[in-house]
């Protein structure tokens, strides 16, 4: 049973409005963070992780160019953008291992658009950290691209950023 905070009458669990007074009750079903860590991940935004800037390439970039970018910048993934600068795919280290494997020389001139992971999950830098954790945990990714309102990439959040955030959080809680 849910008690209406306005009029005190009882309602069925999960209803949106109080039967007696019409007061909205939907906010009562939101989870309440119990610990400091829970509060932090639902309060802090991805921008507080200071995610690294996006490294992008066009759809026609070749496999050789993209592999060289990953190595030169020590990156886990390159974001693929179309001619309007909108995010259309991701090419990660894991894509390289699984799709190129030992045929790098033969595939060197193929465009990255044939091998990338198309339509990747993305977030906005003002979204809460909990969303990035959720996406990474469910999808098994290590990187989530960040995009702006126009769909252009602004950065990448990595699992390592999240770990660093947690170690910082735990250290500050301990002291």
């Amino acid at each position, binding site marked *: 049973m849910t008690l209406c905070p306005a009029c005190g009458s009882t309602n069925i669990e999960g209803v949106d409005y109080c039967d007696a007074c019409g007061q909205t009750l939907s906010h009562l079903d939101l989870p309440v963070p119990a*610990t400091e*860590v829970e509060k932090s991940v639902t309060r802090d935004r991805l921008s507080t992780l200071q995610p690294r800037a996006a490294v992008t390439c066009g759809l026609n970039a070749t496999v050789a160019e993209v592999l060289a970018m990953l190595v030169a910048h020590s990156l886990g993934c390159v974001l693929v953008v179309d001619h309007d600068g909108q995010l259309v795919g991701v090419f990660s280290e894991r894509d390289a291992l699984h799709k190129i494997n*030992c045929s790098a020389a033969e595939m060197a001139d193929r465009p990255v658009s044939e091998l990338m992971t198309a339509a990747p999950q993305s977030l906005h830098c003002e979204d809460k950290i909990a969303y990035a954790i959720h996406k*990474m*945990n469910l999808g098994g990714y290590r990187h989530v691209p960040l995009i702006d309102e126009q769909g252009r990439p602004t950065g990448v959040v990595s699992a*390592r950023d999240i770990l660093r955030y*947690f170690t910082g959080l735990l250290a500050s809680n301990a002291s």
Partner: protein
Amino acid sequence: MDFQLNLNSETVDHAYLGQPLMASAETSLREVLQILREQHQGGILIQKEDALVGIFTERDALRLMAADAKGGQVDYDQPIKNFMQTEVVSVADKTTVGESIRVMSEGGYRRLPVINSEKLPTGVLTVSGILHYLVDHFPQVIYTLPPKPRHAAGEREGA
């Protein structure tokens, strides 16, 4: 705080260790790359006569692939011992989760072999395993997130 207590008391084997993939030092680079692809893994431990002598990860593979794509002539039939990293940072299976996360975060490693008292690898701690472990500790706020991060009703309902 409860969560803090867990991190400092629970041992690393609670953090969803992956099965350690192993290959002998004489295995060819080609075979190792194929094993990684088949097993959907990003790293493999290299052993010689039951001793852990090295690790080969997707980062090493990436460097080789980049060199190969540039025309650098990589011989895929050479044994993996010529390409692996010989300095393997590992943690004992009695190490706490908190300490393992610290080692991983500071060293910038993505996978840490976990070894038992006989120095044999019993598992591999990965970043994804730790994330899953962390989510386990606060499922309430993670699993019940609204479907979209920025949700607003298009118009007032019923008005």
